[in-house]
């Protein structure tokens, strides 16, 4: 089940300077994924300055409103469909790498039982909930309180997911609180932070010695430029212009270096490939656009 080919570090350089996008469908879907990112995660630009002070208690209308948003957020056939379709692929990577790293039985239903995970930029909880079903004690954090509300509402629908601890906070704050986790997971977040090096240091500080860090992002490749920026922002108008800055994307090499300086050694990397015929995503060794990396925190 998890015998998908995983990208090994030594192949990193091979995939640079590849041709433009392969097919228009692939192109469309990558861009679509990108388009939803602001809504899915803690993205500063997606926030208004409206803050918790003005809504210090929940009233029933507010609750109903959030429930409606949560439902469309979680509607697998709704506007977030591409993300729902891609999510199992990200989880397959996490499951296979972390099972191996923590020496867990890959045929176990709840392999992460007893492990503490933090999902940085959890959004509506699309990653946190599956991780909780896989047995992890999950903390989901997001700086956007609307996301946290949506995540909380949805998680309470499932007794297993209701154990997730959602917090309206940032990775930096958790570092200040001296929280530690067996695995720190930040998917599609790093391309939006001002200082990736600092962000990686925070992630590293949250990871226990020999713990795991998983990061996914978009490559600074011509292909990613065409899909994530030109198409999504200028042609299809899925995103406001300026949502993504190509120059702030990281190449796999840069991510590896940045993590290395934060005492995390990247062990495995994989790209995401979309098959327009089956409509399914799979892991591939093409890290040209979207990619995911797994690293281990060096023991001090």
């Amino acid at each position, binding site marked *: 089940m*998890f015998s998908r080919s995983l990208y090994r570090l030594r192949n990193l350089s091979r995939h640079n300077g590849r041709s433009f996008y392969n097919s228009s469908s692939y192109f469309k879907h990558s861009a679509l994924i990108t388009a939803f990112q602001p809504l899915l995660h803690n993205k*500063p*630009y997606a*926030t208004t300055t409206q*803050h*918790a*002070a003005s*809504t*210090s*208690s*929940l009233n029933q209308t507010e609750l*109903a409103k959030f*429930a*409606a948003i949560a*439902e469309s957020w979680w509607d*697998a*056939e709704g506007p977030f*469909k591409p993300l*729902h*379709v891609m999510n*199992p692929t990200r*989880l*397959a990577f996490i*499951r296979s790498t972390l099972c191996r790293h923590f020496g867990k039985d890959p045929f*176990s*239903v709840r392999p992460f039982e007893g492990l503490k995970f933090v999902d940085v930029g959890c959004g509506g909880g699309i990653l946190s*909930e*599956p*991780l909780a*079903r*896989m047995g992890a004690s999950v903390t989901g954090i997001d*700086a956007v*309180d609307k996301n*946290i*509300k949506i995540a*909380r*509402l949805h998680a*309470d*629908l*499932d*007794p*297993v997911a*209701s154990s997730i601890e959602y*917090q*309206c*906070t*940032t990775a*930096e*704050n958790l570092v200040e609180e001296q929280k530690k986790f067996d695995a720190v997971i930040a998917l599609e977040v790093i391309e*939006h*932070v*001002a*200082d990736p090096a600092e962000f990686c240091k925070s992630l590293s500080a949250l990871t226990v010695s020999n713990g795991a860090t998983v990061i996914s992002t978009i490559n600074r490749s011509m292909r990613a430029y065409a899909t994530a920026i030109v198409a999504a922002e200028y042609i299809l108008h899925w995103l406001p212009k*300026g*949502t993504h*800055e190509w120059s*702030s994307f990281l190449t796999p090499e840069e991510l590896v270096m940045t993590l290395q300086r934060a005492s995390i050694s990247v062990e495995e990397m994989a790209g995401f490939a979309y098959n327009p015929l*089956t*409509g*399914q995503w799979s892991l591939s060794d093409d890290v040209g656009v979207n990619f995911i990396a797994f690293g281990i925190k060096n023991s001090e």
Partner: protein
Amino acid sequence: MSRLITTKRLASNIFTFKQASRTFCNDASTKLNNVPFETQFNKEDEGVTNDVPQHDIAIVGGGMVGMALACSLASMPLTKHLSIAIIDSNPALTNMPSIKKDDPPDPRVSTVTPATISLFKGIGAWEFVEQHRHAYFDKMQVWDYTGFGFTRYNARDADKDVLGCVVENKVLHKSLLSCLQKKDLKKTIYPARLSSMSLPTRSSVSNGSSKSLANLAKLELTDGTNVYAKLVVGSDGNKSRVRELSGIKTTGWNYSQSAVICTVEHPSENSTAWQRFLPAGPIALLPIGNNFSNIVWTMSPKDASNHKIMNQHDFIKAVNHALDSGHGPRPESRILGGDVIPSFFKPNVTSAVNEGFEIPPKVVKVVSERMAFPLSLMHANDYVAKRVVLIGDAAHTVHPLAGQGVNMGYADVAALSNVIGDGVAVGSDIGEVTLLKKYETERKTANIAMMAVLDGFQKAYSVDFGPLNILRAAAFNGANVFAPLKRNIISYASGERSLPFLS
């Protein structure tokens, strides 16, 4: 131009409002956590808490396909923990009927393909089938009444031991029940029928008082019980109530044909599956062990009711007439075969490519009741909806012509249990449409292709028109002499290939 506010700035904002925001978040979660959970169903063995039965999966219809799904889920490491409800009023599910070896074979039989046999072996049910009557066959002869069309398949052509196995449906069902009894599966059998079903909607989720129930499918049974499940599997046959209640539309037509089935006896043993195409429809003679064979005979509804009530002597005469002596002449076995075909077409000398026509065994006695049922083709437009999935005849009903109907259902079972296992592996909600769509994508293509092939066969033989007869015969003979095509057809019919004629 960038709207990107740096994380640092946001972080400091958050920090400023930290106290307030903390209060808010905590407040919200406390509020929501105050909602009482009626259940914690993963903690419960039978999935029943506070008298509200909750299950991971509710299988509506505990027939052959439904029970195969239960067995398949019970035999996979990632799905065996699931709590399963089986909803069926059939008393056989709870008090197992005994099958006597000496009874004549039941006329309701299935021709299971090698793919189905390997599914049964995988779930541990085939050993039970082997304890009862079953008949493997390694040869199959298909010909038509015109005397031009003839083809003979041998398992050796495709390097196989068998082409299939004929088993009584009651044996398949009982084997699955015995197999399930040995499994350590959290299952509950509800001896009732489904009366209504409500699926979670936006409003029920947002204002339901018991939140964990509001997100599940609710099944109301005829005995008044309510059952909740994350996923409802409709394996309740071609008149599926689950399909109807979930509003899934179907496409299909009646063939204005009926099939007459019964068990017959002949003087010697039979290990070939025979099928002859007649103007009114095909007649098949399938070995079922010892000197018994099963008859599936397609004809007009009027003829079917006549054949059902006519006296045994006349019926036997009619069967032998249909199988051999009546209508046109026997095919000349070497019409196109043999010497004129370049050796290129023949993969090896032992191939049965040039095997001659054989005469089907003569029927001497009818040993079961005769049954007649109307034929139709039906295909569900969707196989899945939120928290609902259809398998087997609930999703597709075919002409029984090549005995493929139940095999399509078992292929659904194999595909669905893999998809559920994959979903469990990555922590998905098993009732989620995105997950279930993988099953639909996989099976719909294969099922439609199979239905088109079977329907095409049926249509090709429903017209008795000279040029068409010759075309059919040419197709038949082409299939008979061209070895790669023949291998292809065999492996398609064995269920090992999802699309016909595409290598």
